[in-house]
């Protein structure tokens, strides 16, 4: 912070950069995200135990193929984020931006798939208080309640992650984030991996266990 006093003006500031501290802060933030979803995973475990039949029946309603495609898309996007960091470290700004564009595209396709997936469910009356859901057993209704909350919250995180990466791309373009100062890119990459990892758990829990 630069400041003036009555007697003097001090303008020169030394920017104190602490990449390690910055990364540490990001990791702590990721812990909080894990615990946020952790609460939902506890609920999932509890209700899966209570309503194992209902959960098994409801899981067959989901489209495994669509889920698999989305999983592949997200895994690819995690790879491209890493490649973007390496590219920037090697001072290849354009390549780095190119990989980040692919990451953004993957995020977008994931969300479009989700939109069609949710849309189909809504179309069949499967949504909270929806006509089809009210005819289902309590276990199945609970399954879909959790499904919408958990994948919805995850989708929200995808959007936030895309926002982070968009901001970082802007800063790379402006040469603020560079080959020697790439901590913000790495942090947004960490966030993106977290979103990815959460999906890695959501996918089998909702799509694969019948």
């Amino acid at each position, binding site marked *: 912070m*630069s400041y003036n006093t009555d007697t003097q003006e001090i303008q020169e500031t*030394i920017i104190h950069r602490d990449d*390690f*501290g910055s990364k*540490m802060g990001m990791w702590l*933030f990721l*812990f909080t995200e894990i615990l*946020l979803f952790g609460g939902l995973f506890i609920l999932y475990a509890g209700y899966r135990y209570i309503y194992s039949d209902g959960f098994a029946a409801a899981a067959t309603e989901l489209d495994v193929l669509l889920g698999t495609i989305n999983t592949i898309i997200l895994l690819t996007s995690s790879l491209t984020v890493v490649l973007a960091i390496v590219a920037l470290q090697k001072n290849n700004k354009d390549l780095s931006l190119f990989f980040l564009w692919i990451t953004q595209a993957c995020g977008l396709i994931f969300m479009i798939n989700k939109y069609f997936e949710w849309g189909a469910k809504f179309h069949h009356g499967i949504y909270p208080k929806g006509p089809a859901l009210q005819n289902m057993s309590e276990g199945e209704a609970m399954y879909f309640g959790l499904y919408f909350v958990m994948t919805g919250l995850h989708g929200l995180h995808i959007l936030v992650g895309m926002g982070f990466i968009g901001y970082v791309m802007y800063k790379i373009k402006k040469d603020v984030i560079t080959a020697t100062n790439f*901590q913000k890119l790495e942090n947004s990459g960490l966030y993106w991996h977290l979103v990815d990892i959460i999906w890695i758990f959501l996918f089998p829990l909702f799509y694969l266990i019948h």
Partner: protein
Amino acid sequence: MANGTIAVPPQTAEIDFYNVRGRHKGILSWLLTIDHKRIGILYLGSVVFFFLVAMTIGVFMRLEMLSPGETFMKPQTYNSLFTLHGVIMIFLFIIPAVPAVFGNFFLPIQLGAQDVQFPKLNLLSWYLYIIGGALAIISLFSGGGIMDTGWTFYVPYSIRTTTNVSLSVFAAFVLGFATILTGLNFITTIHRLRCPGMTWFRMPLFAWALYATSWIQVLATPVIGITLVLIILERAFGIGVFDPTIGGDPLLYQHMFWIYSHPAVYIMILPAMGVVSEIIPTFSKKAIFGYVPIAISSLGIALVGYLVWGHHMFSSGISDTSRVIFSLLTFFVALPSGIKVFNWVATLYKGSIDVTAPMLYVLLFIFIFSIGGLTGLALGALNTDLHLTDTYFVVGHFHYVMFGGMGIIFFASLHYWFPKMFGKMYNEKVAKVAAIWIGIGFNTLYFPMFIMGYLGMPRRYYDYLPEFQTYHIIATVGSWILVSGILVMFFNLLQGLRKGRKAPDNPWGGTTLEWTVSSPPPMENFKIIPEVTTGPYDHTHIHGQEDNK
């Protein structure tokens, strides 16, 4: 993530941080500040404001309990008032009070740093706190009326009630986010910004307490965050996760709520214990007894505190096995807490004790908190708890540990660090009288609650049987004594602020780093980053005391 910035220190006489002219003038120099000291003062103002509001509500509640039946308010009003009192006191006062005010102001100075690791994030935390507070206030005057669920928002009632639960719960969610960011900031600050020579075991115990607290803030708050979001979703869309009519399990809500909210009581008490560990050596003129056990016991409390949430649910219908385990684990918390109390008392032994106002509050704390702790054992034991749960005994216990613990230590910290924060001294005699006054009022107000609770007076009722009236009258009179004492205390501090004499750099003979800088501290805490060579409570060389002798 913003990085910390350090400016080149000025070479002439230092100007304190209130009078330094920064980029912004007037009110903006406060609202846009990223100086940890100014943010601490911002928190102080807001926290005291909310405390006074919730205190006033408490006085009205006690007034209603003066006679059986309707004294001057309807049952619905009473329900709203106890909810408000709880929500404001817990989320807006007790949780942020010591860490956000004194932690922000003193943690960086005690570590020999110029600021916290993420100064901008620090300001953001304050804004989130203020937005949360504002949302809580807006929720009073909008929607279906003031929330009446109690501060625990238990389902299914919180799903059914037509009052404005969603907005209040969202306010609590935002406040939780502010807490998380403060915790994150403090952990990284402690890891990264300790000055040369400041090893982990040379840190002041206040910093150790904040370290343990911050970990709880980071690791427990998200769970309540998601739980509160689920209540909102439940009310808005009826997803059914907690609604028993469509297959949800209300008991799971209670688990989720207490997984956070029990560790949260250690967010409330640990920083206060840290302050006690600062004040006692200063006024005993002696190094603290058992530095390492005190430091480690903070982490111990944080760890064990994670595993005891079930003791809030002994009468909720959880299995006998889990009740026995939770009860046993609850008793374990007494170990690290006991380590602290015994070490404090051992520090006093053969010290040259100077009973100043802050010390008087600390002694009051040890007395009150011991009663609070011992009555906690009666609640932690299964068989007595079934008799005492949901009675005034719980209310009494809660106020003895929370108000008697955190609240009294908040007052102690105010008096201890007032000269450093404002550069002025307050009237010591009035401060001592106020402390004793508060002590008398406190015990008159809350002690009868143990007796009537034991006799069966249920909590959260606006009405009661006539045989409890004597106790209620004593308690209500106690509330008047307590509140007048608190007002005298605040008035005395304000007088000190207005016309107090100038405070020296080190009025108490303190040994930690904040006493080596001027009062109030300069904009840049240290011209040259200090180098530490001894532990924090070395009384052989005390800064600013050489000329007095």
